[in-house]
């Protein structure tokens, strides 16, 4: 009898372990989705700017350029450790020159590396998961046209237990969702795509729980700055009373309605947004104004 209970207990532990193992496995895209897609590098440049890739993946001292060198190197201090953006230039050895479009899609849509490891959500795949496959194919084509850099990627500085990558599978189970965050009117749909799938505004402007999961119920209502200094503002119409024209001007020149200018990370965001077609900046403004 005792032996039987022990056997059942062991079986349960093994089954739970197996289930946990399976549930935390990194996911991948369906290869067939990308089979028929041809990347358009010119449109990929717009996806690149809308997704703000250069803000993190260029070196901290890099000069602004129309052909940015994505050598990586920016650091992101957080409660869980310091993350460092890797080299995503087309260098074969140090960058992602050897990647296929499927590798990029797995990274952006599932946070899965070509080696089958989970990425930390400092990389906002929690946003990019909503990106259209065609946009990812276009972005892939554009990234290939940028100059390679032989700068090696720097390791993250993350302590136990957050250094157990497999555990990120559990984090994803709890906090990673690929559905839209807000319902959108037809007019706000393009803006929703730009904000919720590419622009990753929510990664900073939405509060997080103790484990770093986004609090979707308080979408874009502001959050403490992870750097520890200052606060990232609430940008919903309940608090931010800027007009659509004010928002578009801010995204274009960086000027606030008081003609102060964007500072900090937002200066960087404005540099990216100012390169988008004005219709896209208007779409983002319309989306923000449509929020509760």
């Amino acid at each position, binding site marked *: 009898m005792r032996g039987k209970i022990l056997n059942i207990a062991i079986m349960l532990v093994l089954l739970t372990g197996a289930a946990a193992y399976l549930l935390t496995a990194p996911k991948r895209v369906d290869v067939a989705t990308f089979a028929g897609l041809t990347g358009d590098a010119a449109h990929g440049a717009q996806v690149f700017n809308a997704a703000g890739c250069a803000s993190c993946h260029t070196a901290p001292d890099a000069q602004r350029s129309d052909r940015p060198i994505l050598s990586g190197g920016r650091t992101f201090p957080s409660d869980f450790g310091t993350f460092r953006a890797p080299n995503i230039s087309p260098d074969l050895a140090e960058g992602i020159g050897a990647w296929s479009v499927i590798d990029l899609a797995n990274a952006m849509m599932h946070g899965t590396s070509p080696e089958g490891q989970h990425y930390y959500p400092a990389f906002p795949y929690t946003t990019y998961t909503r990106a259209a496959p065609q946009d990812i194919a276009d972005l892939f084509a554009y990234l290939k046209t940028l100059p390679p850099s032989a700068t090696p990627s720097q390791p993250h500085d993350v302590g136990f237990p957050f250094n157990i990558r497999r555990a990120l599978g559990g984090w994803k189970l709890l906090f990673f969702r690929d559905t839209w965050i807000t319902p959108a009117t037809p007019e706000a749909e393009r803006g929703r795509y730009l904000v919720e799938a590419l622009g990753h505004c929510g990664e900073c402007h939405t509060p997080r729980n103790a484990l770093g999961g986004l609090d979707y119920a308080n979408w874009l209502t502001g959050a403490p700055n992870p750097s520890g*200094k200052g606060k990232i503002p609430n940008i919903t119409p309940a608090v931010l009373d800027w007009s659509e024209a004010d928002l578009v001007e801010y995204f274009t020149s960086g000027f606030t309605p008081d003609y102060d200018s*964007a500072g900090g990370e937002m200066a960087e965001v404005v540099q990216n947004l100012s390169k988008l077609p004005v219709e896209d900046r208007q779409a983002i403004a319309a989306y923000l104004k449509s929020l509760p």
Partner: protein
Amino acid sequence: MKKITTILTATILASAIGAGAQAESHVDKAVAGAIAARQATMKLYAFNLGLLGGMAKGEVAYDAAAASGAANNIALLTQLNQMAMWPEGSDEMSVDGTRALSDIWSNMADVMAKGTALSDAAATMQAEAGKGLPELQAAMGAVGGACGACHKAYRAPEK
């Protein structure tokens, strides 16, 4: 006798403290004045940019003469000699009432380069603002970028 000594000591101490406080408030006054002056300059920028921004946003009808006037003012502001407005010790760690980062004083060459970028953008806007609304809008973007480049690098976030 002892009483007299005590009073004397107290008086000397008090006057020493008073002198110290006076020296300190003197420094504070100079720094506070410099901070007030540079913030006043920023207000002049903001006022003139506001006139242009109203037109750029379509809130106010475009007026070539008014646009040129405001753009002229902005270009003139970039020519002010601001050396005395940025004394050492007027950074956000040393005094209240400013968001100027101490990095300004350790990267003066870069600060000056960013200042030159602003005066170049302002000169372009001075030439373009009276030509038409699209020209003004394009010039606003470049000026905004130049403002933001310095604010991004050298201004602390709002508390």
